[in-house]
């Protein structure tokens, strides 16, 4: 069915949380496969469990039922082949751009020199050259998110996870960074093969993804998967583009 190798799978995953009001079921019976060289978007209303699912995928959160596996092996803890980009950048304000990026590498058993070299390489890739000594407070939202990307890329993971990465940016900056992330994902010199992005913006999902997973809440479940076979770069003004936006919109409402 799919010409690419399966990289990650989520099997019968459910997750519940204990609250004062009782047991809250965030996710129920989730079955998903992710493949090499694909860009997947997950859309759905707030509260449908998208972020919980992403945390389960990278192993920060254990599922209550079911399991996740990476290249056929069941995952027990954090998946070191995943790195995460956050909506609000997740930068430490007292560290410079360079230090923020190096920090992500601390856990990876690299010498200082190796870490510096890797950080410098990814600073270059995301266009942050010249900003190494800047502090987050000196940067615009777009530049802060470039730091977020560089930090995630520097770990050289196979899977890049992004939780609403463009939603705290102004519209023009978001357009620019979407293009740049697609360029990075398509760069054959980078190890990243699969991108999984959460978004609530349907147009963003259709613009970027090969496949859009549509979720709904109470409890969180997958409604449908929609393949987007449009060639890139995609014309946001085209009829086909509109068609897919319309189809997903109907599934959500």
């Amino acid at each position, binding site marked *: 069915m799919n010409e690419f190798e399966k990289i990650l799978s989520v099997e019968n995953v459910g997750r519940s949380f204990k609250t004062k009001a009782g047991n809250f079921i965030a996710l129920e019976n989730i079955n998903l496969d992710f493949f090499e060289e694909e860009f997947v978007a997950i859309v759905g209303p707030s509260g449908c469990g998208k972020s919980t699912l992403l945390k389960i995928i990278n192993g920060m959160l254990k599922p209550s039922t079911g399991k996740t596996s990476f290249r056929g092996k069941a995952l027990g803890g954090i998946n070191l082949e995943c790195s995460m980009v956050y909506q609000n950048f997740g930068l430490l304000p007292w560290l410079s751009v360079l230090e923020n990026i190096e920090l992500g590498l601390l856990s990876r058993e690299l010498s200082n020199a190796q870490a510096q070299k890797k950080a410098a390489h990814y600073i270059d890739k995301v266009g942050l050259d010249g900003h190494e000594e800047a502090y987050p407070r*000196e940067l615009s939202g777009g530049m802060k998110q470039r730091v977020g990307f560089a930090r995630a890329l520097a770990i050289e993971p196979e899977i890049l996870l992004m939780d609403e990465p463009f939603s705290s*940016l102004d519209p023009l900056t978001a357009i620019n960074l979407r293009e740049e992330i697609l360029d990075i994902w398509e760069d054959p010199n980078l190890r990243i093969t699969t991108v999984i992005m959460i978004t609530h913006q349907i147009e963003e999902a259709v613009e970027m993804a090969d496949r859009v997973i549509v979720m709904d809440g109470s409890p969180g479940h997958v409604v449908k998967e929609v393949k987007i076979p449009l060639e890139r770069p995609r014309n*946001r003004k085209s009829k086909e583009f509109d068609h897919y936006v319309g189809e997903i919109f109907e599934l959500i409402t």
Partner: protein
Amino acid sequence: MDHDSSSNKEIQSLPAAGISETLGLLEVIDDHGGEEKSYSLASELNIETDSLLTTIKAAEMFGFIDTPGRDVILTPIGKQMIETEMNTKKQLLLEQLRKIELFAKVKEALESQEEERLSRDDLLKMIQSWLPNEKAEDQFETLINWGRWGEFLGYSQDDDYVYLDQG
């Protein structure tokens, strides 16, 4: 525009737009086939007209767009800017920064210093004298943002010096 480099020439202030936004604007104009009315961009993108005009002004200052009448038109260098890879982008931006008077003045000022560097306060005073009608802090901020992007200027908050980026 007149490209006379005499020092008496009036210095243009920098519009407070970021480079990422400016590149995003070029993408949008490109989506429209390289040409669009500025007012229809504002409604399409759902952004404030003021903020769009600031970005348009920056893109024009870089020579990435022309703005005859109400149109915004991508220039060949603007088109190149969105199609090329990151290091060429930075190189193109640096070439455009060199043509902007305020950057030329700052470069001159830095080169006249013994260690080719200036404190933020000293540079603010200079900017105020060159652009008495502008808020010097805002000009400084844009100067550093653009200067860092094009690797023209560096600024370290730790030791509070602005310097020329020698690559």
